[in-house]
């Protein structure tokens, strides 16, 4: 399970963003930078910029969404449990800021579930019970809020697989969920160029890794 949860989000290039204003321009620069930053210094720099944009705008949830994503990546770059938790706490605080601007949002709920899922990695034996419950609850809520959100399905599939692996039986319905995510990614039309659109590539990778393996067994 550790290994599976440790599958890190690969490099996700957001589609080219048209700069049609200072906000879009700044986001267009920082979103791909957040996904591609390779050192914690570079990532912290991007997160700081996103937080500045969020604070200056005041009514946009996207900067906080990506800043929170940045904290998840930052958490992942650190080794010690205390450091990992510190950045995951920051990710949740940042998601909470976005929640105030856009309550009951599927993307934000899915990201929150992602944080819970990554918490398990710190200490699976002790935390598995509590955080797997929380992660499942978040992913299921995210799906309920927007049944068409491919990321909610993708993350739910990852969680199902990780849990089933821990228990040592099957895929836990992961392939079905990931296949649904695949369909949704194919038909996805982001609301705006800066709306979340990541996940298609890692979903494909997860299908290749999990579902091929299932068939060959």
């Amino acid at each position, binding site marked *: 399970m550790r290994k599976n949860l440790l599958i890190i989000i690969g490099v996700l290039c957001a589609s080219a963003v048209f700069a049609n204003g*200072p906000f879009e321009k*700044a986001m267009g620069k920082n979103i791909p930078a957040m996904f591609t930053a390779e050192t*914690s*210094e570079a990532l*912290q*720099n991007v997160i*700081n*910029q996103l*937080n*500045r*944009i969020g*604070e*200056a705008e005041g009514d946009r949830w996207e900067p906080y969404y990506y800043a929170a994503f940045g904290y998840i990546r930052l958490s992942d770059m650190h*080794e*010690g*449990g*205390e450091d990992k*938790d*510190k950045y995951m706490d*920051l990710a949740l605080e940042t998601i909470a800021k976005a929640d105030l601007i856009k309550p009951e949002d599927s993307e934000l709920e899915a990201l929150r579930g992602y944080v819970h899922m990554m918490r398990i990695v710190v*200490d699976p*034996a*002790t*935390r*598995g*019970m*509590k955080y*797997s*419950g*929380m992660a*499942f*609850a978040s992913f299921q809520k995210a799906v309920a809020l927007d049944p068409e959100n491919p990321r909610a399905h993708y993350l739910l599939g990852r*969680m*199902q697989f990780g*849990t*089933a692996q821990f*228990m*040592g*039986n099957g895929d*836990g*319905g992961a392939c079905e969920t990931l296949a649904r995510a695949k369909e949704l990614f194919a038909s996805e039309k982001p609301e705006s160029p800066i709306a979340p659109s990541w996940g298609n590539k890692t979903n494909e990778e997860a299908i290749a890794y999990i579902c091929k393996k299932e068939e060959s067994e």
Partner: protein
Amino acid sequence: MRYAIYLITLLLAGSPFAQQTISGRVTEKSGEPLLGVNVYVKGTYDGATTDINGSFSFTTYEEDSLILVASFIGFHEVNLPLSKDSEPLLIRMREKVSELNAVVITAGAFHASEEGKREVLKPLDIVTTAGATADVPGALNTLPGTQTVGETGRLFVRGGDGRETKTFIDGMLVHNEYSPSAPNTPGRSRFSPFMFKGMSFSTGGYSAEYGQALSSALILQSKDLPDNNRTDISLMSVGADISTTRTFEKSSFAGKVQYTNLTPYFELVDQNLRWDKAPEEYNANLAYRVKTSKTGMLKFYTNASRSDMELYEADIANPETVLPVKVQNDYAHFNASYKELMGDKWGIRAGASFTKSDDLASLSNDSRDQELTGFHTKIVTDYQHSDRIAFLAGAEVIQREVDQVLEDETGSFAQGFKERVSASFFESEWFASSSLGFKAGVRAEHNNLTSGETVAPRISAAYKTGAKSQVSIAFGQFYQTPQTQIILSQPSTQAEKASHYIANYQWLGEGQSFRIEAYEKRYDQLVKYDQLFDPSTYSSIGNGYARGVDLFWRDNKTFDNTDYWVSYSYLDTEREFRDFPGAFTPTFASSHNFSFVVKKFIDEIKSQFGLTYSFASGRTYNDLNAEGFLTGRTPAYHDLSFNISYLYNNQVIVHAMVNNVLGINNIYGYQFADTPNENGMYASRAITSPARRFIFLGVFITLSKNKGINQLPNL
């Protein structure tokens, strides 16, 4: 043309205003540069992140009344008004003292929580420790500072008697926390470890919020709202239970019913005791939790049980003569607690608990019926003045009514008392920095029976000696009403007193921890008497001491999928109390206690194995056939216990355990006949376990929509 140039400038610069460069350095108070600080002009995108030297530099087109913000996790935010053409700035940031970085006062305390940032234990450890039989005190008995007293199953801490440890659930005192058991057989805690999200086991020097315990406080926090609906069914060699959890938007309900009957087990496995009716128990738990607001939580918990057993005890002098023994108990406990934050700085906690316990015990024609009614109310407020200073103040009333009826052939005799302990407490916490913290508190108690007042100070301090290590010290005074039998005979007997002095060193690495703690405990005002049943011989002049060293090492890093810990306690104690003719080591104290606990998960067979070895050196007993007092010494105690949990699939787990695998006949002491035989000798009998081994088998089934959940963490 000029217009065109203006336009180009505008396009290039994005702003008609002049460009200004802002640069400088950000450091800690100590001058250490800070890396990663977000430095920016308030309300704009303009800013930069500090580099490894703490330096930053950026340009802004804003001009008027600029405010520069420096923001960094773990530090207080800095807001600086900027004038035009500022020189390079030097910004010093002050560290925030937070839960994450603050030194923790660990003298005397073992903390366990699911979050487990600094804890040496997890709640899960309680249920996976072999030999503990999923019993909270059973698992805590593998920690240093405890002495194995195998015939009771209770927590005996640092030379203290079992009654000197008190249990608190959500801040409320629990009376009669152990299920009844046959004479000299271990009892279990009534409270399932699965109920709790966190616990703090204090082996001394605990907070002023708690009282009426001379040695130790076991502070348990019940779980908050669960996330999923589920139903659990357990089928065990000793009984069965079914529990269900329902979650709603802002509340949850959990219920459990359990039936235990040892008859089939005793049929199969030979017992040292002759049972007429094996222990049987009906037990029901209900919990209702409501989230009253974003930060508020209201919890109700109730537990009710009925148990009884009957056996025959051989007369010590004439083993052929057997006397019937009956033990029966009806128990109800209700606990309500409320917690809420009021603004950023104030918090409030309030609670009420009610306990009713009716114990009936009889030996032949002599019987004792003891009824306890306990009532506890408490209110606590806390005030967080800043990240460095916090206060806590509260008041509580602990009431206890005990009525006892003794009956024999000659008639019956009734005694009783109503005790009301009113207490108020105050505690303040001060962090000079994240590495140096102090706590000072005081607890005042008034007892209606003695009309006496006690004032007990509690002081502690902790200092971080390195990123992973710290030292802490604690001092405290503790008062407790003497044992029930004494108060029944003489209600105005004054409280007994203990003073603790503790020094602790702790090292916490990633996956490894080490603790060493030395302590000195002084007992005063202990009750002395010639005859327990003659109150005219009572006096509060008894005293004693306990001193020793506790060691603990835990490691789940060195060996793959393997977690182990080692505990050792050295204890030197003597008391002059009860009917002791001088200072002697009491029968419940052993000089050396050692535990080794190991757990290993083997992926290939989806099973977790656990092994616990416990050792305790011999204890004193009063040998009536020898000269002197308490001159007897029992052999050392050894126990090797083993458990295994096998995950059959997501929803089914099979669990097996064997306590005392080697079948060692541990002797806890000796009982003597009341009168000598014709040779002038007293007949004796060893106090031993009711059976050499205890074997348990269980199948645990979970039904949940969420396929990821099972009872694994419950085992």
